[in-house]
């Protein structure tokens, strides 16, 4: 704990905290377009942190990570609908439930799934996401393939933007500090050991099963929170919340920023979103080709992403950029 408080002075957490502070002020100084822009951006960043916990910290390729985002959305939507009429309290207080349910799901499938490694795990998570999407596609009480509009249940709370914005800023702040705290503490060493050589880590006393499941659930929690917030923000949940393109975007962000780094999601998220916005306007149909190419180039040339590569460049930067 003491170390964590000392950590404020390090450049990385300081920078991240300033970014969150800057984001918090945006609604007061900028117009609604920027606010919406930042909402989408923060959603991506929180998701990137959540995925980074699984891919970056334990090295497991979670291609189906979007399932937690979708689950979060449906939990929020489902709870709102279950109430029927007026809720009595602000719906955004339901968001933590989204996170908890997603984490519970991760715990349930984590036990069998995390025994599988490498490409098999990636395919398995993809399959699980597809399976869950099918379930919601056929769940007519929650809208089935058409989706569930939430407007009628939330008439008392017309302003979705403000609470969404602040929930996301807080979530981003928490996501960063959770990630950073783990990275720098005892857990970080255990996780990196698992990343390097899982079998050796075990014989050194690292309870690999516990660590893997904990990170998977933690990642699911943050993804669930982002999903619940997004569902409420959009006033709508549907099976598209499980679309795989979200996972694609997240991987591009992580690779761009640097897998396993604390700054990666922020850097990658910002670049990705700005560039994508630009590209979408100019080349609405080809932007995915562009991102596929970017992924290929980054994999071949910049495997550590921007932050990772900069760290390798100068040893001194290794201490500054984490």
């Amino acid at each position, binding site marked *: 704990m003491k170390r964590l408080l000392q950590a404020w002075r390090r450049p990385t957490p300081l920078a991240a905290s300033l970014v969150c502070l800057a984001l918090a002020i945006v609604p007061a100084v900028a117009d609604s377009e920027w606010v919406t822009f930042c909402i989408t951006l923060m959603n991506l960043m929180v998701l990137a942190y959540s995925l980074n916990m699984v891919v970056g910290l334990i090295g497991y390729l979670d291609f189906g990570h979007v399932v937690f985002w979708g689950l979060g959305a449906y939990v929020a939507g489902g709870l709102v609908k279950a109430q029927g009429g007026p809720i009595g309290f602000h719906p955004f207080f339901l968001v933590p439930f989204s996170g908890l349910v997603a984490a519970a799901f991760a715990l349930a499938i984590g036990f069998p799934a995390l025994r*599988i490694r490498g490409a098999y795990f990636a395919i398995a998570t993809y*399959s699980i996401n597809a399976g869950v999407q099918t379930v919601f596609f*056929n769940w007519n009480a929650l809208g089935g393939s058409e989706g569930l509009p939430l407007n009628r249940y939330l008439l008392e709370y017309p302003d979705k933007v403000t609470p969404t914005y602040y929930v996301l800023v807080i979530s981003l702040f928490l996501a960063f500090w959770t990630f950073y705290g783990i990275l720098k503490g005892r857990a970080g060493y255990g996780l990196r050991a698992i990343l390097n050589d899982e079998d050796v880590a075990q014989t050194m006393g690292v309870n690999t099963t516990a660590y893997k499941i904990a990170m998977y659930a933690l990642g699911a929690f943050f993804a669930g929170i982002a999903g619940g917030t997004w569902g409420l923000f959009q006033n709508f949940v549907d099976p598209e919340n499980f679309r795989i393109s979200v996972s694609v975007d997240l991987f591009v962000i992580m690779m761009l920023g640097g897998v396993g780094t604390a700054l990666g999601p922020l850097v990658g998220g910002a670049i990705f979103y700005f560039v994508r916005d630009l590209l979408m306007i100019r080349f609405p*149909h080809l932007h*995915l*080709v562009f991102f*596929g*190419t970017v992924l290929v180039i980054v994999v*071949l040339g910049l495997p550590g992403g921007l932050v990772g590569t900069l760290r390798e460049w100068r040893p001194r930067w290794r201490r500054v950029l984490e």
Partner: protein
Amino acid sequence: MELTLITQAVINGVLIGSVYGLAALGLTLVWGIMDIVNIAHGEFILLGAYLTFVLYNLPGGGVSPLLALLIAIPAGALVGQLVFTGLLRRVLGRSGLTTLLLTFGISICLNNILLNVFSPDVRTVRWAGGSLLLGPLVVPISRLIALGLVLVMSGVLFAFLQRSYTGKSIRAVMQDREAAASLGINIRGVLGIAFVIGTALAFVAGVLLSIVIPFAPATALPYSITSFVICVVGGLGRPLGALLGGLIVGLVENFTGTFISQAYTPAAVSVLLITFLLLRPAGLFGWTTR
């Protein structure tokens, strides 16, 4: 009544499953020898399908899918060679994450190029329409032809792997890379050839799929997933396993579709995959370690 339903499901499962099996053959070869999972596999299959489509719809009569099959082989080989020398070769030594992301990126690019060139519309190649009617059972002729072609192509592949020097080298490298190297086999070269053959097989499978079921850029991912599942079920690097795995998946799909609901087929295939991953990760014919 029930018996008819079951028999029809079996027939459907076997017919489509054989083509699935061929589709997975290329993937299992590449995966077994290089430990590279080609996420773009579905896109390669699609390329074969679209190639057939374009040739079939050429003005002035069009080209028969049988001819397209013969063209698909060198076309697929060429694409495979380009991808291998241009991209894959550079990441051969690196971690699983790296290679997966590379093929992931390739898959995204290819998929979107296809999306832009051909639009998201679903296509078919209507050739050899009609079906054989055996009492209450329906056997589409196109699928019967596809089955025949699968058998022919598999036979050719097996003969190649068993008899030819290159084929034997491939099997050797798959079993024990170091031993093969010490026998003077050019490992890099063999890996390249395996990938080229794998891609050509994917193209051929695409040709066959195009005459059997509708396709679109969106179907690339399901093709990939089906092929992966088959590889896991059959065992990596085991061609016979791939064919058998294909039949199993085809049967699972059809039985689920007939007796539960068409909508739940992806879920059923997922369950099959996870079951194998947990209980027998090496697959039916795979080598078990420990």
